[in-house]
């Protein structure tokens, strides 16, 4: 019995090759990006008490590839693959590598640079930490919209739902789950970008996030009573526990992006976040970051 019909294969090639040549794939725009940066987080473990707060710095590197497929009627599709790594100066259990992909659809509702646009994106990332209690998947779905409102001002808004799944850890407190690193949240961000010049951009952003937060701290009655899940967190020390609670985060950020050359950009950002949780286990943090991005 003939397993492969070469005549049919020949015909298939004759059909497929020309189709590939005229398909949108052939005229897609492909971009590669690499990003190297340093981040300082004043409260990486989201702790409330001064004795528990851990400030750290981390070096990060990121490589991504983006394919943009312009479609008819102002529509476009993009596919992104990204790999990222982070290494911390302390608490090396937080060192991580992630691998993810995203698919985004965007529609421009008119012709021209001032046309409003909307979009939908789906992404999935696998997170791998040196201390594997945090390993898991991060899945996001977001709707976005934006418009250039003046010649130098471009505004955009995003509503995102995020679900993180991780392994359930051994239960530490009776009646309270050990599934501390599985989280669900919703976040709304608003950003306004100001173009200072051909190469200098300033972004002003705000964040409102509601959902699960995880704080790692020494055990207190107050935090235990507010937690939906608890597990030991050896990353920060033998007496530290991770607590999952419900919280609301308010944040502000200012970013500066400077195009050093036609292919590279220097970025600096500063953000401040305040989180209010159930049971008043509130915490604050500041994050500063500087990075260099190269486009190829």
């Amino acid at each position, binding site marked *: 019995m003939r397993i492969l019909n070469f005549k049919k294969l020949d015909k298939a090639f004759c059909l497929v090759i020309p189709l590939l040549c005229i398909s949108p794939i052939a*005229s*897609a*725009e492909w*971009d590669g*990006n690499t*990003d190297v940066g340093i981040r300082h987080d004043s409260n990486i473990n989201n702790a409330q008490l001064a004795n528990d707060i851990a400030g750290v710095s981390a070096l990060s590197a990121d490589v*991504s590839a*983006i394919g943009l497929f*312009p*479609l*008819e009627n*102002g529509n*476009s599709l993009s596919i*992104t693959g990204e790999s990222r790594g982070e290494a911390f100066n302390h608490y090396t259990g937080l060192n991580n590598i992630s691998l993810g992909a995203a698919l985004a659809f965007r529609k*421009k509702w008119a*012709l*021209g*640079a001032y*046309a409003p646009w909307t979009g939908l994106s789906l992404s999935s990332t696998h997170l791998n930490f040196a201390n594997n209690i945090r390993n898991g998947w991060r899945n996001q779905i977001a709707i976005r919209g934006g418009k*250039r409102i003046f*010649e*130098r001002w*471009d505004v*955009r808004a995003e509503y995102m739902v995020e679900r993180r799944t991780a392994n359930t850890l051994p239960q530490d407190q009776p009646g309270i789950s050990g599934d501390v690193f599985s989280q669900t949240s919703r976040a709304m961000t608003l*950003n306004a*970008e100001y*173009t200072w*010049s*051909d*190469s200098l*951009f*300033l*972004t002003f952003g705000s964040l409102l996030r509601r959902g699960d937060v995880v704080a790692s701290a020494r055990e207190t009655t107050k935090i235990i009573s507010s937690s939906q899940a608890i597990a030991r967190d050896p990353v920060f020390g033998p007496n530290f526990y991770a607590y999952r609670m419900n919280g609301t985060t308010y944040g502000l950020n200012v*970013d500066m*992006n400077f*195009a050093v050359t*036609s*292919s*590279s*950009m220097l*970025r600096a950002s500063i953000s401040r976040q305040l989180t209010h949780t159930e049971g008043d286990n509130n915490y604050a943090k500041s994050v500063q970051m500087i990075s260099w*991005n*190269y*486009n190829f």
Partner: protein
Amino acid sequence: MSKFHSIPRILFASFMFVGLMFAWTALSSVSESGAGELHAFVKDQNGQPIEDAVVLATPLDGQNAPLPKQPRNEMDQIDKEYVPHVKVVTADSKVYFPNKDNIRHHVYSFSPAKVFELPLYSGTSAPPVMFDKTGQVTLGCNIHDWMLGYIYVADTPFFGKSAKDGKILIADIPAGEYSVRVWHPDMKGTEESTMRKVTLDITQAISMEWQLTLKPVFRIPRASGSGSTAYR
């Protein structure tokens, strides 16, 4: 006296006659063609030469000047930019928009002189566009917001565009009276405010100079602060 002694005189007279005939013919042909030259220089408010300034000489006698043979008019798209940045064509010209990038572009214009769009295409598949009204046509790309180009549709075949040195030469202009004006996409004020009447003849070239005030122009930058792509 032998007739042979008069031959040199006859030859001399013949040469003189032929020479005079040539000279008369040459002078007649020059005066009939009436071709002149106009040299122009355009600078900005700081005295710096301006590139892409267009000088136009429109005959005042109202006669339609014969159009010289038009080259194929093309506005290229190269490395996600329009090339040239400014193109001048006469009214009722066709312009082709070849896309020399390996990605698709979507050319459009909202200008009153010509509203049109060439939806997503690559290569040379887009049909040419007829520009029948005079005036400025501003071009954009719906995919790449920073792409900007201009087509100026002229009411006269006598025009020139300046290079980086700000200089323009309009050659082979028939003798006569002309209204000469300047246009630049970033100029403050109108073309009409730059208008001057000039009489061109064949005896000497005319030099003209303009100083334009250019407005500060913001162009949507190619780089972007948002997103992961530094420079598009």
